[in-house]
């Protein structure tokens, strides 16, 4: 007989393998039954209720968070526009002073960012504030 060519009789049959495995797992399952100490159903139910409530509360708060973010954005936009308007006012005052000294009103550049920026900011913040106000007062 060549080395490695073992007699067929030493190989366990499928039925023997199945018996070995079944016995081993049955013993392990019996041990698992002894070990198992799951929490009571009342506790598991209570925890599930609590968690479901927390998740529902988080879900309910989500639209409010969005409205808060919009309101903050509107506030920031408003502040920006006021700041820009103030700067534009200073520039206009300087232009009027120039008029008094003979310069033309046309010297005020209406395409300047000091004019367009505050106007754009005001328009955007007005739109955002309208949406925010809708969300805030819609529920009420």
């Amino acid at each position: 007989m060549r080395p490695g060519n073992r007699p067929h009789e030493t190989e366990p049959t499928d039925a023997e393998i199945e018996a070995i495995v079944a016995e081993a797992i049955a013993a392990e399952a019996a041990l698992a039954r002894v070990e198992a100490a799951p929490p009571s159903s009342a506790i598991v139910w209570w925890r599930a209720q609590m968690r479901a409530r927390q998740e529902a509360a988080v879900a309910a708060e989500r639209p409010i968070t969005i409205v808060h973010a919009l309101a903050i954005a509107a506030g920031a936009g408003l502040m920006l526009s006021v700041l820009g308007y103030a700067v534009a006012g200073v520039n206009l005052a300087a232009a009027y002073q120039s008029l008094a000294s003979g310069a033309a009103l046309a010297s005020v550049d209406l395409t300047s960012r000091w004019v367009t920026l505050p106007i754009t900011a005001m328009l955007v913040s007005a739109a955002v504030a309208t949406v925010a106000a809708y969300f805030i007062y819609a529920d009420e």
Partner: protein
Amino acid sequence: MADATFPLEVDARRLHGDAGADASDVALAMDEDAFRAFYDRTSGALWGYLSRISGDRQVADDLLQESYYRLLKSVVPFESEGHRRNYLYRIATNLVRDSKRGPRPLFDAGVEMADMPAPEGPVDAEGRADVRRAFGRLKPRERALLWLAYAHGSSHSEIADVLGLETGSIKLLLFRARRKLAATLQR
């Protein structure tokens, strides 16, 4: 959120059996009585499954609660108790698969086997430790296959349902897993 503490008080009363409390405002897939009955029938076996598949009792404790919670939050229309149980095991299997892979103390804890209460059966403590180590050398899917087949007596279609496999492939996968476990045990 002014009344955030109210549900806590209500639940505490329910937990202690106060029938007058009304806390049924959270939508879950089962009512309390049905859930508790189902849990009492299935939790011990599920804990055994989780502990043997994950190889960690602590993981089994954590995933047990998570499995039942996900079952309660599911919107699946269950046709039968068996269908619900299979779905629960499928959730548990996915949770084990997704859980952090770390050391698996259960499979390496041969020493502590001697301290465990001995169940009735022909295998002694040393033999059980060998079984556990051999089981630990299998892949999680092989452990799940063998456990469902031999500890739970599940059919091929039930195993396929739980593990998300084709029913036709279960026979071959079980055959391979059996041979692998037997070879490890005989080594």
